[in-house]
């Protein structure tokens, strides 16, 4: 379709965003330059385009000037794309005829010291947006039904809360928990801060509610091994591990007395024993025993069989050696991930002696000592001699705020310690308690008061971070080596017990069977740090609790309810609109080679008869990554809203002026584009040579785009995307890098210096990496520009 027949009337709206853009980019000058662009019939500037006033003025302008394409030059599309799409739609124009130019996160914020160049770059970014806008087609958003059911992965307090909230709202919930009982860390604590409530007492009723709720199917001792599908229509495979004990079990406990195998009890931090047939803890839900198949003799009546024998003797017969792992498939509409964090492994700090010195404990082990259902029935005694300690020392920031382990602060450790010290002082005020810290973080409601109470009860707080703990070989007492900062003096006080206040480790990389972006510290990444704290980049999947970042119970519960509401929002509507960004095969040109089939990780493409019938794309399954289109040998796959021509026009617009100085950077929406935005949010400065072209996935980048950029004289080309295991579209980046050899061979043939093409994996949490890449590639482009000038001069 040529432009004349479309009768393009493009409107460009430039936002000053207060001073955020206007302080660096000359908005008025930019507007004047934009007026000269072909097909642009209307240009306006706004102070705050996203505000009600701003949006109203855009709407008015669209109507009055009969605009049929809209370009807003403002912040990142990751922030306000939806906002402005709606504005466009409400003005009567199809929202997919709208395009954004990012002149804030990727321009004004990162070129603060080069206003003139930033303005020129902003203009070129507007030109690129207009170039794409010219070729945009209206799209209809298909609708899909949302199943009114949710999968909650993780049965800690966050998972429990989310499940109850959703179930109470009338939705069906499947709660899957890996360990034999729900309750997580909260179930094994003694008291909670700042109220000093008994932990299991407040959690227990919720755990029972979960078990008894008609809308909740509790799957404990189970793992989610596969998740497929898309928002509203997920299927999951759950591995139900064999318990070898039926649910007729009355928890009479006869079996444990005859079982010959003893194993360290996990919930007691290995401070006590359990048998191979066991109940995790007295208040476990489901309150069912199970056989630990790893340590049992092998559920083999010839080898042992004692538990089954005694159970039959009692007339119960609820031990079943023929139980087997089974796989169940479920269908749900939404998913909430609440798998929590891992407690830091203190054995990584050998100089503190945990694991070697019996009287050095972690805060979690200490909680178990205090707990009435713990290894010592609530008596505070030293593991070495079972006597009450006369003095206890606490060390803060163990494994946190440390470049050698985790650099972040783990949020709960300060209050965890303060609570523990108060527990000691409440029962035994004569015990000497000292806390060694760098800072005390008592930021929450009631926290500062608790800290004060601790000081008033005589808990001593000494500012100093111990370097090591040594043990007296006879008394097994511990000596802490530390400088008392307030006295500028080295002290080595002796304690009968030392407690290490451990922090949180990020969750296991394989915690869920779908790739979800992670932040720089390894925790699952929320969609927006301020405005979307429980959403993920994948629609329909939410996160809550410790899996998102270390936090205490109240914050976990808050996030859990938030995630439940976000999931309920989708399910309440019954159906949602699907982004019409999907692939379409031109059947008339398709040679049915099957390449696209191999590129699609969603199984969205089918060929009835290979070599005969053309490939067909299932719109609902297609996520729009574009990997198939990039590798199609016939170039006959069209990616809606990210067509080849649209992308090529952006490349051409970017390189119209002084191409040899430019760096064309392809960035994927979910990771590297987010990383670029983060660099902007963090005000990391870099040269103005870069022109970012956004695609859904790095897999979309056809080598032809790169060739076109070099043919037009680009100084450098960068291809960026998600890290290898984290591709938002599962495998797009893998295929992207497979094209590298082809591209480099073409470059060699065409005498293009290999330095001028670079591939880098940048996650949404890696702003610094993006900045460094831009600085590096800008140098390459500048060097190339110098060479071009030298040639021209000679």
């Amino acid at each position, binding site marked *: 379709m040529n432009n004349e027949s479309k009768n393009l009337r493009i409107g460009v709206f430039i936002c000053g965003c207060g001073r955020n853009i206007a302080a660096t980019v000359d908005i008025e000058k930019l507007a004047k330059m934009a007026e000269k662009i072909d097909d642009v019939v209307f240009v306006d500037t706004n102070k705050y385009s996203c505000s009600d006033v701003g949006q109203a003025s855009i709407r008015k302008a669209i109507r009055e000037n009969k605009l049929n394409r809209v370009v807003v030059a403002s912040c990142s599309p990751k922030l306000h794309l939806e906002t402005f799409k709606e504005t466009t739609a409400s003005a009567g124009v199809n929202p997919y005829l709208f395009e954004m130019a990012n002149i804030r996160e990727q321009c004004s914020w990162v070129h603060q010291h080069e206003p003139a160049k930033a303005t020129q770059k902003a203009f070129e970014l507007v030109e690129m947006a207009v170039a794409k806008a010219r070729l945009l087609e209206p799209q209809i958003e298909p609708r899909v039904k949302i199943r009114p059911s949710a999968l909650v992965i993780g049965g800690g307090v966050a998972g429990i809360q989310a499940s109850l909230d959703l179930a109470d709202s009338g939705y069906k919930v499947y709660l899957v928990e890996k360990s034999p009982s729900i309750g997580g860390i909260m179930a094994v604590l003694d008291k909670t801060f700042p109220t000093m409530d008994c932990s299991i007492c407040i959690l227990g009723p919720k755990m029972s509610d979960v078990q008894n709720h008609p809308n909740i199917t509790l799957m404990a001792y189970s793992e989610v091994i596969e998740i497929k599908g898309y928002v509203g229509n997920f299927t999951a495979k759950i591995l139900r591990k064999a318990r070898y004990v039926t649910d007729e079990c009355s928890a009479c406990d006869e079996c444990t007395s005859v079982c010959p195998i003893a194993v360290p009890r996990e919930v007691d931090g290995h401070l006590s024993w359990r048998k191979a047939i066991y109940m995790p803890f007295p208040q476990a839900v489901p309150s069912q025993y199970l056989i630990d198949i790893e340590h049992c003799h092998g559920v083999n009546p010839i080898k042992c069989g004692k538990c089954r024998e005694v159970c039959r003797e009692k007339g119960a017969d609820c031990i079943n050696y023929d139980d087997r792992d089974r796989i169940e498939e479920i269908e749900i509409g939404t998913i909430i991930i609440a798998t929590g964090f891992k407690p830091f492994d203190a054995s990584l700090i*050998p*100089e503190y002696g945990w694991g*070697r010195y019996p009287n050095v404990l972690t805060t979690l082990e200490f909680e178990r000592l205090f707990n009435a259902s713990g290894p010592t029935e609530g008596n505070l005694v030293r593991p070495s001699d079972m006597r009450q300690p006369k003095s206890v020392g606490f060390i803060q920031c163990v494994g946190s705020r440390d470049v050698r382990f985790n650099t972040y602060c783990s949020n709960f450790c300060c209050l965890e310690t303060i609570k523990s010290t108060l527990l000691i002082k409440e029962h035994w005020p004569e015990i000497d308690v000292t806390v060694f810290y760098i800072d005390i973080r008592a930021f929450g409601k009631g926290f500062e008061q608790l800290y004060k109470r601790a000081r008033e009860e005589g808990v001593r707080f000494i500012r100093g971070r111990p370097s*090591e703990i*040594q*043990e*007296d*070989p*006879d008394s097994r007492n511990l*000596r802490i080596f530390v400088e008392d900062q307030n006295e500028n003096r080295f002290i080595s006080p002796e304690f009968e017990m030392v407690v290490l206040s451990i922090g949180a480790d990020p969750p296991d990389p394989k915690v869920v069977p779908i790739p979800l972006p992670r932040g720089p510290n390894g925790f699952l990444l929320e969609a927006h740090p301020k405005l979307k704290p429980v959403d993920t980049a994948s629609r329909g999947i939410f996160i809550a609790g410790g899996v998102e970042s270390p936090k205490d119970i109240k914050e976990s519960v808050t996030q859990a309810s938030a995630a439940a509401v976000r999931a309920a929002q989708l399910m309440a509507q019954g159906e949602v609109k699907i982004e019409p960004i999907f692939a379409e095969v031109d059947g008339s040109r398709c040679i049915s080679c099957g390449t696209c089939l191999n590129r699609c990780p969603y199984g969205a493409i089918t060929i009835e008869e290979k070599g005969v019938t053309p490939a067909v794309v299932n719109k609902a399954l297609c996520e729009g990554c574009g990997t198939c289109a990039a590798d199609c040998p016939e170039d006959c796959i069209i990616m809606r809203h990210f067509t080849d021509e649209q992308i090529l026009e952006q490349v051409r617009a970017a390189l119209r002026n002084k191409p040899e100085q430019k760096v064309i950077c392809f960035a994927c929406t979910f990771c590297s584009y987010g990383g670029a935005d983060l660099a902007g949010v963090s005000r990391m400065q870099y040269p103005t040579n870069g022109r970012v072209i956004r695609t859904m996935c790095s897999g979309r980048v056809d080598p032809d785009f790169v060739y076109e950029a070099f043919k037009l004289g680009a100084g450098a080309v960068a291809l960026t995307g998600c890290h290898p295991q984290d591709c938002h579209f599962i495998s797009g980046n893998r295929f992207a890098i497979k094209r590298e050899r082809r591209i480099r061979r073409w470059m060699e043939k065409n005498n293009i210096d290999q330095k001028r093409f670079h591939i880098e994996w940048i996650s949404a949490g890696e702003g610094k990496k993006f900045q460094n890449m831009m600085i590096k590639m800008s140098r390459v482009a500048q060097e190339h520009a110098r060479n071009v000038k030298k040639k021209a001069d000679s």
Partner: protein
Amino acid sequence: MMNEKIKRYALFWGCTIQFRLPWIELSARRVLPELGVDIVDLPFSCCPDPVSTKAIDHKTWLALAARNLTIAEEEDLNILTLCSGCFETLRMAQEEMRDKKIKEEINSILKETGREYNGKIEVIHLEQLLYERIGLKKIEDYATRPIKLRVAVHVGCHFTRPSNILKTDDPLYPEKLDELCRAIGLETPDYPDKNLCCGVGVGLVDRDIMSKLIIRKIKGAKMVGADAIVSHCPSCILNYDTGQYILAGSEMERMPVFHYLELLGLAIGIDPDEFAFDEHKIKLPDITF
């Protein structure tokens, strides 16, 4: 013969062993060939030491270290060193000269001598040879008469630190030397101040502080009933052996000091007469097997 492969190394002895503790050199020349090591002597100079020379001038320190490395490079031999200080110096120098600009700067100084540093050879320490190249299993097999002795193992500072460059063992709680000791039958209890620096670095300016550190170490070893200290750092051994000798105190209170190679040699069957146990300042305990 026990050695399966002949490994040729340029042996970097260092000042402390050659001048002050020649009995360590004796032990090494006796024991290392049994482990398959072929020793080559080259005209090395002082490494130079990583405490006083490095404090005066970094470039000089680097240049002298580079010269030593080129001597081994010329003969296309890797360097094996028994001195932790020399090990730290040579490895840190290698790491630093991976930067092209620094390498060029140092080579411009070496040019006067006709030498050029290329970074082609490897530097390993005795403990790495024993633990990584030969392995605990083989050492256990070689040790046909394991020694019954309760020892306080002292690793010292320069073998493991700075850990981001040396990468030999945990810098704050190294355990590989303990494992090597256990492999030849020794009892290696944990003891207070096990990882305390011997103090020889600060001894350059303050002998009092050095003495206090020596006393702490001895006290810790005594607390667990150790019969002797075992180490592989010649500086630490010199400090403890001679240092205790100089400090006041009766014979009963002093803690003897062994070099690991001496005990290893005895364990693999070498006659005690072939070592120079009399050269130790503090009388050594009787060995039982």
